[in-house]
């Protein structure tokens, strides 16, 4: 069985196609593995392969862990929030439906920061997820459950969502691959909205090839999502052998800032590896990117304050018992149903959109966003890719940053600019480094960003670099393929 679980999704797919592997048995093996979840990665698991409306009768591809932000008909969907406790959606998200149609059984729904707001998964109403490399540390967030499930041997692959780094950062902290596609590449229909203009679905996988395989399933225009356009061409499996002729830009405006020495060492080693593989390293300027965090923490909460207003106790989910009028019912339901970080962002966003403050906050943030997108456009005139560390640090300890929201927000320093620009970016494991305070080594992610809709090229470069790096470390007890 261990051998079975060591396969990548693509490896399993090929074995199934060759008739060497029974897809049902393979899914069962993963169900048993998922049942051993000690990381609090899953909020719901399909214990016996009967997921009702979202069941797959004849599996034909690796089973999948789904972030609990995706609506799944008849299956509990909470977005990590108390306010949706017990909620079973009447419909299924397009991304999940596509996976089901491709024959991927759903192993379970994974834990997450409440409404995807967080970088450590400590904002889940259902308890934090533990990092499989060190259970005293966070897996990153907000898609912490999906990242920990894949890294911890509880799922062969998973889907998550990335608004400002929620796929890439946990992928980096858990030592796996995380891809945030171009905004619009994958339908958002059925993905519980945090910040609509930024949210994008993407894969968590063991390697770049699996990411390409899953992206091919997920991408596409969806009549239910007016902002979806799909990719110009369905991605094929990457096969690039080196990086000859490709230019990689290091944005000194971002990498010039202070971050963990261990992360910096891995980042610099990776730049050398790129050159060894024939790639060229240039410095590029993203003069407005360092204001990304500020703009992001205006735009995302503003949209969230509106998106989360529907959780009012009237139609579904939790309703606080109240003897008062409708306003009191709203207030009690929302006071009891939402966690502290969600409330903080609703307040921030409500303020930013208020009459008299709109231009100074939301209007200004949108201008910064446009500038950042312009910066990337100029950079891509000069280079093929922009590269940074994915996260300024390796996985930090549970509770380490919970008292300081600002230092928590800075986790997204390297990932937010790409989200604001709507461009694709991938995090691949690039090596191991000690945390700033010392201790056992933990994974470090390397982020590669490409122009909008250049996923194929991005995957090609990431694949070649992945092969060159040869990262093969795994958390203890996790089979290595």
């Amino acid at each position, binding site marked *: 069985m261990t051998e079975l679980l060591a396969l990548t999704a693509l490896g399993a797919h090929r074995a199934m196609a060759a008739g060497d592997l029974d897809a049902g048995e393979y899914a069962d093996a993963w169900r048993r593995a998922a049942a051993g979840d000690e990381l609090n990665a899953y909020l719901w698991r399909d214990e016996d392969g009967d997921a009702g409306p979202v069941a797959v009768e004849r599996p034909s591809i690796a089973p999948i862990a789904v972030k609990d932000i*995706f*609506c799944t008909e008849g299956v509990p969907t909470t977005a990590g929030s108390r306010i949706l406790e017990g909620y079973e*959606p*009447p419909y299924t998200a397009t991304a999940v439906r596509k996976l089901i149609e491709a024959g991927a059984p759903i192993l379970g729904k994974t834990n997450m920061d409440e409404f995807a707001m967080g970088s450590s998964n400590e904002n889940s109403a259902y308890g934090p997820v533990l990092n499989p490399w060190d259970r005293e540390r966070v897996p990153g967030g907000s898609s912490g459950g999906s990242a920990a499930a894949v890294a911890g041997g509880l799922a062969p692959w998973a889907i998550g969502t990335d608004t400002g780094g929620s796929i890439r950062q946990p992928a980096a902290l858990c030592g796996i691959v995380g891809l945030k596609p171009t905004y619009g590449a994958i339908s958002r229909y059925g993905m519980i*909205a945090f910040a609509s203009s930024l949210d994008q679905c993407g894969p968590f996988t063991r390697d770049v090839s699996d990411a390409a395989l899953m992206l091919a399933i997920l991408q596409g225009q969806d009549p239910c999502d007016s902002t979806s356009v799909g990719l110009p061409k369905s991605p094929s499996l990457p096969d690039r052998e080196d990086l000859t002729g490709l230019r990689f830009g290091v944005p000194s405006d971002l990498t010039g800032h202070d971050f963990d020495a261990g992360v910096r060492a891995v980042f610099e080693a990776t730049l050398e590896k790129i050159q060894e593989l024939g790639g060229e390293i240039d410095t590029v300027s993203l003069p407005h990117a360092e204001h990304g965090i500020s703009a992001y923490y205006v735009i995302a909460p503003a949209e969230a304050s*509106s998106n989360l207003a*529907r959780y009012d106790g009237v139609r579904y989910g939790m309703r606080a018992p109240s003897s008062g009028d409708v306003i009191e019912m709203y207030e009690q339901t929302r006071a009891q149903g939402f966690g502290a970080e969600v409330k903080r962002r609703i307040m921030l966003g409500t303020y930013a959109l208020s009459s008299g403050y709109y231009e100074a906050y939301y209007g200004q943030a949108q201008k910064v966003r446009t500038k950042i997108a312009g910066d990337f456009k100029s950079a891509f005139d000069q280079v093929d890719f922009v590269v940074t560390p994915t996260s300024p640090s390796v996985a930090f300890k549970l509770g380490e940053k919970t008292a300081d929201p600002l230092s928590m927000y800075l986790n997204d320093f390297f990932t937010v600019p790409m989200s604001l620009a709507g461009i694709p970016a991938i995090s691949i494991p690039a090596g191991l480094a000690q945390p700033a305070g010392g201790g056992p080594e933990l994974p470090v992610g390397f982020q590669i960003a490409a122009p909008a809709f250049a996923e194929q090229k991005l995957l090609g470069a990431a694949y070649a670099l992945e092969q060159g790096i040869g990262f093969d470390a795994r958390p203890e007890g996790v089979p290595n393929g």
Partner: protein
Amino acid sequence: MAELEAVIGLEIHVQLATKTKMFCGCELSFGDEPNVHTCPVCLAHPGVLPVINEQAVRFALQIAAALECEVAPRSIFHRKNYFYPDSPKAYQISQYDIPIAGAGRLGDIRIHRAHLEEDAAKMIHVGESGRIHGSGASLVDFNRGGTPLVEIVTEPDLRSAAEAASWARLLRETVRQLGVSDVNMEEGSLRVDGNISVRPAGSDELGTKTELKNMNSFRFLERGIEAELARQRDLIEAGGTVEQETLHFHPEDGSLHPLRSKEEAHDYRYFPEPDLVTIAPTEAMLREARESLPELPAARIERYTNELGLAPDIALTLATDPLRAQFFEQTLKSSDVGAIPVANWVTGELTAALRQAEIDTEEAKVTATSLAALIDLVQGKKISHGSGKTVLATLVAEGGDPAEIVDREGLAQISDSGELESIVAAAIEANPDAAKQIKAGNGKAIGAIVGFVMKQTKGRADGGEVNRLIKEQLGA
């Protein structure tokens, strides 16, 4: 103190008669069982997204064309955020600073803008208060939630309650003839709110306005505005000032009540709807909207008065009844006489005949050709006007050829002047008192003798000729 002039602007919500809702595939309906036309999208389940109804955009473009509005090359939707159970998302998707249609006009009244939005769900408050405050319970019917609306806002160009009501009628008729809405005020598919203020006559400045709601008929619209104007005038004349507020009109007793609850000091926190894309109508869509326009009431009134010389009230009557107008034009085409008699017959005698027979226009057997033939007979003095009405009654009920009916019923006008002369002479002899009075200069007395002649001839005599003969024979 100078006289206070009324300054009135209207905001009209038109529910579009599309097949489905504004942002989801739910069927539109009125009067069905509550909450049967709902889906995850219009119930605002987590994760759902709106998709713009293309038919609603086309309908809005037709309205824009009919109101001669400038169409925005690119317009966008905003979110209007507020908490209330009739708004499941807690925001209404509406258009804010870039509406689909800008400046336009209908008749003499300028249109400020027209924009697309979605309707709220319907609330029913159980208990005595009739409002959410103090009600025993409130029920929500989401069938209506998400119905496409076009909100039309006028400039404050109306100067009286009567003018406002009459213009609103013209607007309703215009929208109705486009076929894009049922425009039924009682069912709420047409809702008219008033923005009302007063100012010293001749002033250019606008006074503080109040918003008047809940006038679900044109009569109530007029009465409500009238009441609010009176209230404002009394207030100002007593040295007070008008406060900006929203008032609810109660038609039962004509009273006005300030509205609170939903509007409690609102900041709607508008921002561009990130789930939708820009509306950018193509040249083909714009052309299609323009070409789909029937001749609308305002244009028809202008043509009828200017080109056909009809009186304004008759032109208005025809213009607001497109079926009748069409019948008028067909009759005119088949007739040898001018537009004025034909219009008089269509709006006068025909309407009366239909009412008399209790027959709908659509069911009447009379055709444009037969009516034209009948009018020609009357105008050509082949039959009297009275006989004409008799023939028309037959045409309405049974149809047929007027000339045949005239023959069959012996209604041909007495054309032999000798015969008529002797009938008149006999009538004078039979009415000596009247004859004496006529001779004495009492012109009115002639009626008695004319009536006698008509009775004798069963209406087949030409009234004018009878008059002339009486006067001639009496030397009056």
